């Protein structure tokens, strides 16, 4: 039995942050019903990456919304709204990411919903916290990365700002939303009362920088210093931390004793850089020296030298390489969902294992409103 079996989630959220939380709750056993506009459904259905679609919905939409049901409702129509309200009475959790004021206008804000269902967990995702001068700015991942300072941490100091190449603010915000909802369920178990959960993309983007922000707030307000070289991996860590080109690919070197690494590479670092504090201050010099040696041999050769010495290193793989690797295959990360036409779609599974069981699910993403009649019947709406 999955841990959240028996819970009913109504998802008014669109795009990635909120729906990724809905996906996690679904994989953990909850029943998740998307409440969508009749016809078109949620806006995320049209947002694609690499222009890939399955029939009318983007592949990304399918990735984020598998294992859910869809209920069509026009929230501006009185009869539809009434049915949704009666569904809310039976729900445990509702999530939305409308801009401030929208749910108030519809009459589904927290105070109104609490009256319908005094035990509801009401969860809101905003871009920037819902108050202040940015409250109505679009809550979009790249914009939030750009405003949060995150773009000054990756790449080289010659690159200008380098964003994370995936929707990191969205994904972490979804993870935080899930944490908040689950903690709220524990609170509700004690109090028997409704709980309000609020997260924002900006606070989540700041939270993932908490180690550095704590450093920044206590080091006199210095800004992050990236290496000027290629392969830098962390503005706050000393050499050798980074990625190095070999004769036939790339090798990652994590933190460790630089002098031991020097010996293993037959590179004299001990006389020039004996003190660990120099490993940060002279980082670029040291990285150049290491790079000049690393590029003379293949990745495999370096792994065979460094791994037996317990030096933290790894080869750098792309998707083709990792998915051919036994270390990936043994984890059973891929799963197939069954599309309505009988074809199979391969995607990833939930990353959490419970009692040594992987959580797979074959249920695909729903077409807009495809479960409306069934849900009306089941809940007598």
């Amino acid at each position, binding site marked *: 039995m999955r841990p959240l079996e028996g819970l009913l989630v109504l998802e008014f959220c669109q795009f990635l942050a909120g729906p990724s939380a809905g996906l996690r709750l679904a994989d953990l056993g909850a029943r998740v019903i998307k409440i969508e506009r009749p016809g078109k459904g949620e806006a995320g259905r049209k947002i694609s990456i690499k222009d890939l679609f399955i029939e009318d919905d983007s592949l990304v939409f399918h990735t984020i919304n598998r294992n859910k049901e869809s209920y069509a409702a026009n929230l501006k129509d009185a009869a539809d709204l009434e049915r949704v309200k009666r569904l809310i009475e039976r729900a445990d959790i509702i999530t939305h990411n409308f801009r401030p004021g929208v749910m108030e206008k519809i009459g589904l804000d927290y105070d109104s919903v609490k009256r319908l269902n005094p035990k509801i967990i009401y969860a809101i995702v905003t871009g920037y916290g819902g108050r202040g001068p940015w409250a109505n700015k679009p809550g979009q991942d790249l914009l939030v990365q750009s405003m949060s300072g995150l773009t000054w941490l990756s790449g080289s100091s010659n690159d200008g700002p380098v964003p994370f190449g*995936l929707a990191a603010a969205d994904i972490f915000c979804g993870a935080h939303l899930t944490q908040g909802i689950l903690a709220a369920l524990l609170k509700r178990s004690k109090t028997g009362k409704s709980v309000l959960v609020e997260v924002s993309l900006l606070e989540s983007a700041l939270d993932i920088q908490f180690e550095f922000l704590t450093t920044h707030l206590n080091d006199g307000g210095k800004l992050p210093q990236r290496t000027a070289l290629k392969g830098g991996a962390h503005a706050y860590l000393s050499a050798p931390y980074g990625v190095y080109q070999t004769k036939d690919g790339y090798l990652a070197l994590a933190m460790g004793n630089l002098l031991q690494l020097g010996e293993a590479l037959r590179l004299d670092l001990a006389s020039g850089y004996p003190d660990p504090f120099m490993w940060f201050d002279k980082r670029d010099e040291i990285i150049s020296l290491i790079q000049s040696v690393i590029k003379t041999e293949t990745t495999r050769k370096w792994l065979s030298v460094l791994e037996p010495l317990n030096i933290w290193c790894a080869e750098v*793989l792309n998707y083709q390489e990792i998915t051919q690797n036994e270390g990936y295959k043994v984890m059973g990360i891929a799963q197939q969902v069954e599309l309505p036409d009988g074809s199979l779609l391969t995607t990833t599974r939930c990353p959490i294992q419970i009692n040594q069981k992987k959580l797979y699910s074959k249920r695909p993403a729903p077409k807009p409103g495809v479960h409306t009649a069934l849900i009306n019947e089941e809940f007598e709406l």
Partner: protein
Amino acid sequence: MKPLEDYLVIDFSQFLSAPSASLRMADMGARVIKIERQGTGDICRHLYTSNVIMNGESSVFHAINRNKESFTADLKNEEDKKLVLELIEKADVVMHNFRPGVMERLGLDYDSLRKINPAIVYGEITGYGNKGPWKDKPGQDLLLQSLSGLTWLSGNEGNGPVPMGLSVVDMLAGAHLLQGILACLYKRGISGEGAMVQVSMLESAFDLQFETITTFYNDGGVVQPRSEKNNAHAYLGAPYGIYQTKDGYLALAMGSVSVLSELLNCNELKDFPDESQYIKRDEIKAVLAAHLKSKNTGDWLAVLEPADIWCAKVLNWKELMNEDGFKVLDMIQEVEMNDGYRYKTTRCPIKIDGQLLKSPKGSPMLGEDNEAVISELINLPARS
């Protein structure tokens, strides 16, 4: 009332992954006791260090371990282990991130602990799972980024691998562990039974990439296609990216190139129909990059924002912290250690019932809570 009040967490973990989960639990109201080795403690106190030392220990340790208690024990010593087992009997959650086999050798694996506490929720993070060729490899963030394909998503094509400049896999694995633990605590409230929750950094690294990996599974297995210029997402078309202006940088998210060409008064963009935004992204980005350099960021925002184009100014932390939009979040808190040392840090990003989850307690000195923990939680016969 904080949502996890009255929960007791016994945390054997080190570094960032699982400790980031116990920090969250502490902020949500749980009592978290770190079990640390005598003498050195969590390796993160010293080894994993920025060059910034605060009150004798790394700034990173202080960020991750505030709001927790520290209990030192030698887990190979029977007396000490007895104390720790007493704590576990009273605990709701046990967590660790040792390599496979370590907790078994110590007799602290799930099967052993559920015998003394059947309701325990036991959480563990490994690097690569408990089987397979990589199970004994070090579970370190940069190595996971490198193995999982993540380094080919950021930066421009031609720049080689570009890691994300913070421990993104560690933190997501911690977030997943916490999700699993909380879900099992919820179920325990109904069934009375504990559970084991397992997360690996490898699975978390793939989950982070679930959109792009799914695309790879379904696009014929093409390697990650970063754009040559202004890349911000390997799988998105123009204009998605960050562009230099006369006085700074401007971020542009997804949007119609034909609309942009009108608003920005950029005639060369008119050669590109909206259907070509992915296929011709490098050409479009080159045109945009040249055009946007001609004016200040503020000038462009004044045109684009009123037209509802998704755009933003790129800020660094200093600039961000001067903005009213940041100040209104009340994101920074000051905490105090037992010796009176005070430092600033960020707060928990989740609001519950309209309340910010702040806590004034700083990180613990190694072993500072041994006496209090023994007197409050352990009822052994008087020890000599």
